[in-house]
């Protein structure tokens, strides 16, 4: 009987379920399903817990201008997180504007121009930036970077140019605000974008480079006009992932953004971000409506980063498939 099973398994190529295979199969599927279940549970829990605030305010939870959890004799508590949402968007914008070109340059250097002996150690250093916990970025930011940047940039610029350009206006007090948060976040997301860009550029077939060189292009022209365009979907995907990381960043933002609900035009002014709002207030929430509003904000963060990640993965998958399957 056993011999017959042997022969069968060789001849038809399909795996034959043996004794013990069924529990193994079931076990792995169950535990793997925990991952799926976790995601569904997270979405469901946040959806349900946010219902109180959503029913009371609708979209205003995210876009209303006043966030006031306290009952006063003149007003009921209102929960409009726009100052926080705006802070998140602006600081992430600053971060991406700084990080994306730099990371593209780093990816190009590591993939195309770097001497081979240097490429592994340099890649390691760049990836080490990603391993540093975000709270350490916050500590360094508060004690080292913000005072330095204040003296060197924020104060001088806001006192001179700031009179003419509203988003560079002063006064600069502690120096915490959108701009320093954006700069520190840029450093944090650099490695994500850079290593992904480097990987994607390395996948570009060499024939593309040679064809460009053969019509008389310089090294840079080859990179910029043949290699990067070929991989552009992947590069865009890398930037999207970096943006997602910046949007969700909590600790560096909480320590550096200044935590003020006032909306000011200036990038030097203190502000607040969605993530730091949740971190600061959730454990001290004064009412269930307050709590529900905060969870709505967290849910929105979850949804946006999910969408960005999905988009980025699709982009990168598209590049991969195009390179493997299509003609070069």
């Amino acid at each position, binding site marked *: 009987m056993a011999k017959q099973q042997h022969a069968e398994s060789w001849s038809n190529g399909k795996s034959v379920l043996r004794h013990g295979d069924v529990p193994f199969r079931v076990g*792995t599927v169950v535990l*793997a399903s925990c991952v799926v279940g976790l*995601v569904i549970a997270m979405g469901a829990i*946040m959806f349900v817990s946010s219902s109180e605030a959503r029913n009371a305010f609708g979209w205003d939870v995210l876009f209303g201008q006043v966030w006031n959890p306290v009952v006063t004799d003149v007003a009921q508590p209102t929960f409009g997180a726009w100052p926080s949402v705006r802070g998140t968007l602006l600081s992430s914008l600053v971060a991406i504007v700084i990080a994306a070109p730099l990371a593209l340059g780093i990816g190009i250097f590591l993939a195309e121009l770097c001497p081979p002996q240097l490429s592994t150690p340099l890649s390691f250093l760049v990836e080490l930036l990603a391993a540093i916990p975000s709270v350490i970025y916050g500590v360094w930011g508060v004690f080292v970077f913000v005072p330095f940047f204040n003296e060197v940039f924020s104060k001088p610029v806001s006192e001179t140019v700031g009179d003419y350009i509203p988003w560079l206006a002063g006064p600069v007090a502690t120096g915490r605000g959108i701009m320093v948060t954006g700069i520190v976040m840029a450093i944090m997301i650099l490695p994500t974008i850079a290593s992904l860009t480097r990987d994607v550029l390395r996948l570009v077939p060499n024939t593309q480079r040679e064809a460009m060189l053969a019509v008389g292009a310089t090294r840079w022209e080859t990179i910029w006009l043949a290699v990067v365009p070929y991989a552009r979907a992947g590069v865009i995907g890398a930037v999207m992932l970096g943006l997602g990381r910046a949007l969700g960043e909590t*600790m560096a933002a909480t320590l550096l953004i200044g935590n003020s609900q006032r909306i000011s035009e200036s990038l030097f002014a203190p502000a607040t971000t969605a*993530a730091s709002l949740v971190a600061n207030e959730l*454990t001290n929430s004064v009412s269930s409506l307050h709590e529900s509003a905060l*969870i709505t904000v967290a849910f929105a963060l979850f949804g946006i980063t999910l969408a960005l990640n999905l988009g980025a993965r699709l982009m990168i998958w598209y590049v991969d498939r195009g390179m493997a399957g299509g003609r070069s």
Partner: protein
Amino acid sequence: MNTTNNYRWRKFVDQIMRGSTIVATGCAVIPLIAIIGYVLTLGASALSVQFFTDVYQPPNMAKAATDGTTPAFDPNDPFAGIGIPTDGSAPADGSTPAEASVYAGGPVGGVLHGIIGTLIITGMGLLFALPIGVFAGIYLSEFRNERYSTIVRFCCDVLSGSPSIVAGVVIYVLVVIRNKEFSAVAGSLALMILMIPIVTRTTEEMLKLVPESMREAARGLGAPTWYSTFTVIIPAALPGIVTGVMLAFARGAGETAPLILTVLGSNVISTDLFAPMASLPLLAYRYTESPYPGENTLAWGSAFVLMMLVLIMNILVRVATRSRAGANR
């Protein structure tokens, strides 16, 4: 040689742009050196034997220890109601300089409670994450052609890409509110959510690297799939899986946001899993926000310990990966 008109311009652009990529790489390396450098130097000054063996005592608790009262624990103001003037002048009631040294910036006590707490909370989180992560990785690798595996992989990506605070929010709602208490277990559960994708992805990739010939040989000998997986495939991939575990630990140890919402923090050494516990990143965060220089020094110290932990883990993983790649060549 007839050069075209724009040739000098093209050459110029070529050199400038290639140089700018070097500058860009510098823009990544310089902050790295700056951050590591500052943490190492400023953090090292906080180190002493006391740092590793003691627990920071806010002045009100030290005073209470001497006169036998029970201090009110207020994490936002450890100096509540104890009569130490905040302008650095000598305390009116003749209390000892040690209690006032927190103004001078010298370290007061240590972060032993944070070290213990980080080890417990992260370790427990890893314990929860390992079975799910490893088996999900096995599933993704050994059954990769099934349609369900795409869904699993997608959910893994969702978990790895979601902000860490979201994990904290979910566990806060699920566990903290329900039990009406902050606890180390809640923190571990939140960290588990963040560590699962790392373990899963590394396990899957390491298992995929095991050559198909091994699986075929095992199958040819008549071994059931589960047997060959556990006795042949996993041992072959084990070093890689271990590096994934180390990376997950390093990542979990550094996370702060989920812990703010689930563990709260503490000023005393505690091993009670169902109560608030201290943790290094939490200490670094709270001591940074503190206006007292002594506590700020402790913040640098906590950052130092955390940084060393993360750096050493990452370097070990790198060395292990490279030596394995070298051995395979």
